[in-house]
């Protein structure tokens, strides 16, 4: 009882998508902070408004689209007052007043009243049969009309209008869409895509009257038709107005809160009265209002954080994307696609396939995309748009999409809808389309994360993420899957990698618990994803100061060997530049025999792998290898792995420089360094490139006149040739540039982000500027790398084999002989 008295009261006005998402997020963060009361005019729990279109089209039922049933409110101790409308906010007494005159006090108030459909002020707009398209009540009336009448007119050729028209047509009505302009969905589509859309809707039987202005609605006791600017008339028993929405802020305005086109809020979603928050379509943030759920969910998260008194997050606005939910029509649009002098366009048009793609670039970045007919790459473009990726290096192939760039999991498929249930979507985890669809519908999943957790699809390499998002969109019909604008580091926090790295430096945080405390981690000790990331960030930020936390290291890095599927380990000694000696080989052979090591294999990185070593034998194996002068090859590390070389000018008749010698020099300088993800180098003695340097993280190709430095290649899950960074004349310069480049990556890369992904994200030009052009900066980077190497270059094997470091790790705690 006591805590009942001390709990603060939170009142929510508006039982809709944004309001309840906020409440859900709040309960996650601070389940016991508030007594919550929710008022909603509609007589239901919270439902998925987006899916009203499929309900109208008869593809789903109202029960299918319920998000929070009445039981949910009860289970969470929330007082739901459905069917009750708030008519006044009394800020003086901190109370809300219901239309029945009931007064309910609040400590904090959340306004989430959504918006109302705009009803054009035409003569006859009050007639029965003239309706908007906003809620279950509207849908019920449309369905009723479709059984009693034949002719419908939909005013408005935007997203909502077309979805309404499609639904009514599916219900057997003759539908005419009246649109003021000559392009459908002109806010999302350019004239070409709009034309394609019109054509395919016409093929399905929809009729268009456009451009046309509606002048009057005709009828006596019920609508009978509509008259237009050109004097023509159309017969109609039902008129749906879908010309736009108006944020619903009357209540707030009456209460004296500052409103313009919506309730004006700050970056923490507070109105001018700090006790009153607002989220959703009723809100105006930095001059923007929104009419799609993805940004509203971002707002909800920020608002919930603040309500939970965790004031760290702020809302910075959102970029949105749109998908039309008309079954069988693939259409995607995002960002800004109006032509402009500073913009460039890439257009692909294939009339036969009915495909149209237009990508709009500005300053080497994607700022807009319109796709019609083949939208599989929509989420991929959108991701690059939101991330502000420099796409200049993939420009020529950009319009063909992720699959063509080697980024997509599957190529040659142009619609997930057309895929069979057996089509494998996630190659890593062997998950097929049918399994994902089943999980989404049976377990009522909404987000990419849900799907990952339940099916494991897209939870490994992530190259199928776009496809999974498509399956989600196609199964749900909405665009729920839109990834959050900034990716949180992991589920334990809302903060991004960049935020975490920045705050570590700004706040001088020097331990994992300190970071977790300051940044309000949601879990006690984090998890297997964030702990290794934080350990790396601290190690890279505070060399020599931070004490490596062994318990936050993945097992391979903790025991300096690679775990195998049977729990044994593999051991790979370093072979500088891939060069070895008879005595090293002899020592390896001896070790293999002495410890009964079952497999000895040559690796792809020019070294020798001893596989199947028992954990307790590791220190002794290392001791023998150490005695022969060998050290750890860090084959297990997110760090410098191998430097692959060819024999170069020493032996090869084509060799231009001493590629082997340079490789050894690089490896000796850089070994032992920890990096966000593994780093592999290659040095070839001439452009014949026998060391395959141009698919490495960093590669050098020697030429007569010097050294070409390349980077950001990959030859794993993805295959990608390197980017040319610069050409220098001496070995020393080569070393300096490569070391500086690696240091920049160490300072800015996200944990587990390979160099090529990092380059994709921040842009080649940016990197070149700081590593090549700005010589002072290059030298500073080089200096920081060299400094941190002082603390990194101790052989972890020797420490463990002969200096007793971590002795407990390798021995059992006890051996029991149970009777």
């Amino acid at each position: 009882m006591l805590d009942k008295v001390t709990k603060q009261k939170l009142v929510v006005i508006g039982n809709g998508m944004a309001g309840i998402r906020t409440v859900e997020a709040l309960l996650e963060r601070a389940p016991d902070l508030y007594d919550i009361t929710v008022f909603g005019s509609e007589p239901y729990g919270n439902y998925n408004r987006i899916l009203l279109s499929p309900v109208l089209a008869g593809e789903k039922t109202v029960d299918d689209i319920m998000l929070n049933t009445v039981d949910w409110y009860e289970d969470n101790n929330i007082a739901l007052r459905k069917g009750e409308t708030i008519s006044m906010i009394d800020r003086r007494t901190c109370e809300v007043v219901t239309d029945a005159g009931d007064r309910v006090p609040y400590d904090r108030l959340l306004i989430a009243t959504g918006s109302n459909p705009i009803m054009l002020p035409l003569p006859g707009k009050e007639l029965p049969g003239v309706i908007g398209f906003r809620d279950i009540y509207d849908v019920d009336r449309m369905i009723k009309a479709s059984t009693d009448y034949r002719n419908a007119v939909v005013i408005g050729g935007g997203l909502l209008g077309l979805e309404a028209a499609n639904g009514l047509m599916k219900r057997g009505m003759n539908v005419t869409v009246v649109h003021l302009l000559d392009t459908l969905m002109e806010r999302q589509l350019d004239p070409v895509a709009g034309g394609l859309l019109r054509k395919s809707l016409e093929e399905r039987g929809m009729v268009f009257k456009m451009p046309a202005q509606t002048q009057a609605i005709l009828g006596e006791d019920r609508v009978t038709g509509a008259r237009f600017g050109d004097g023509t008339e159309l017969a109609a028993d039902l008129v749906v107005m879908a010309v736009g929405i108006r944020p619903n802020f009357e209540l707030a305005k009456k209460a004296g809160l500052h409103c313009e086109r919506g309730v004006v809020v700050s970056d923490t979603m507070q109105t001018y009265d700090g006790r009153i928050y607002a989220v959703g379509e009723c809100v105006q943030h930095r001059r923007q209002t929104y009419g799609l759920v993805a940004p509203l969910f971002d707002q909800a998260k920020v608002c919930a954080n603040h309500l939970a008194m965790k004031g760290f997050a702020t809302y910075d606005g959102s970029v949105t994307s749109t998908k039309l939910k008309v079954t069988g029509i693939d259409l995607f649009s995002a960002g800004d696609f109006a032509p402009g002098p500073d913009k460039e366009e890439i257009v692909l048009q294939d009339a036969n396939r009915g495909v149209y793609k237009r990508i709009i670039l500005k300053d080497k970045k994607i700022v807009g995309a319109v796709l019609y007919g083949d939208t599989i790459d929509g989420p991929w473009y959108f991701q690059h748009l939101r991330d502000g990726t420099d796409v200049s290096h993939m420009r020529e192939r950009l319009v063909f999409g992720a699959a063509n760039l080697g980024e997509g999991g599957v190529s040659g498929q142009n619609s997930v809808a057309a895929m069979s249930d057996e089509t494998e979507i996630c190659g890593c985890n062997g998950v097929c389309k049918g399994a994902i669809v089943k999980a989404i519908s049976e377990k009522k999943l909404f987000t990419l994360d849900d799907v990952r957790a339940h099916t494991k699809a897209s939870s490994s390499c992530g190259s199928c993420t776009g496809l999974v998002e498509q399956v989600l969109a196609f199964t749900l019909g909405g665009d729920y899957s839109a990834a959050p604008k900034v990716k949180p580091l992991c589920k334990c926090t809302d903060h991004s990698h960049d935020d975490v790295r920045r705050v570590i430096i700004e706040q001088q945080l020097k331990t994992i618990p300190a970071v977790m405390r300051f940044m309000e981690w949601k879990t006690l000790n984090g998890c297997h994803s964030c702990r290794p990331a934080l350990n790396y960030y601290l190690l890279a930020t505070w060399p020599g100061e931070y004490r490596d936390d062994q318990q936050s290291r993945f097992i391979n890095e903790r025991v300096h060997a690679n775990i195998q599927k049977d729990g044994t380990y593999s051991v790979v000694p370093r072979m500088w530049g891939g060069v070895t000696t008879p005595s090293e080989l002899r020592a390896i052979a001896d070790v293999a025999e002495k410890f009964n090591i079952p497999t000895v294999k040559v690796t792809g990185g020019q070294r020798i792998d001893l596989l199947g070593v028992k954990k307790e034998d590791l220190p002794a194996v290392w001791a023998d290898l150490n005695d022969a002068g060998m050290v750890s090859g860090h084959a297990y590390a997110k760090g410098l792995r191998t430097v692959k070389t060819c024999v170069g000018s020493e032996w090869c008749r084509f060799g231009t420089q001493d590629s082997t010698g340079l490789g050894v020099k690089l490896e000796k300088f850089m070994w032992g360094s920890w990096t966000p993800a593994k780093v592999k180098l290659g040095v070839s003695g001439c452009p014949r490139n026998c060391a395959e340097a141009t698919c490495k993280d960093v590669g050098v190709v020697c030429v007569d006149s010097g050294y070409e430095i390349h980077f950001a290649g990959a030859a794993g899950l993805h295959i990608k040739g390197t980017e040319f960074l610069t050409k220098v004349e001496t070995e020393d310069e080569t070393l300096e540039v490569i070391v500086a480049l690696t240091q920049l990556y160490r300072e800015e890369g996200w944990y587990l982000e390979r160099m090529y992904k990092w380059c994709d994200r921040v842009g080649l030009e940016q990197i070149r500027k700081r590593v090549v052009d700005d010589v002072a900066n290059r030298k500073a980077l080089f200096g920081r790398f060299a400094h941190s190497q002082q603390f990194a270059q101790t052989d972890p094997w020797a420490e463990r084999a002969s200096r007793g470091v971590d002795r407990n790790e390798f021995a059992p705690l006890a051996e029991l002989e149970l009777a």
Partner: protein
Amino acid sequence: MTGWIEIGALDDIPRLGSRVVRTPGGNIAVFRTESDEVFALDDRCPHKGGPLSQGIVHNKRVTCPLHNFVIELASGQAVAPDEGCTHTHPAKVENGIVWLSVRQAAAVS
């Protein structure tokens, strides 16, 4: 089930870490949480037998090093949506000494 057997000092197990106890029925992993609670489980992941003792420990859970199943230390249950269960054994700490009672089930798992 055996009686309580002394297996070593709490300090010999790292916080948020684990050590292995050898038994004829297979290895048992003994975990220590941040707040010095101990838990004992068969050292076999319900997924494909990965050695749980080698995983990262967080709160009262461990993540298997092979394919990231997350296992509840107290119950041995895999955290949803993964499914499966590992045998647990009673374990306790008294005056800095860790005690284990081995359930014979270890032998058959």
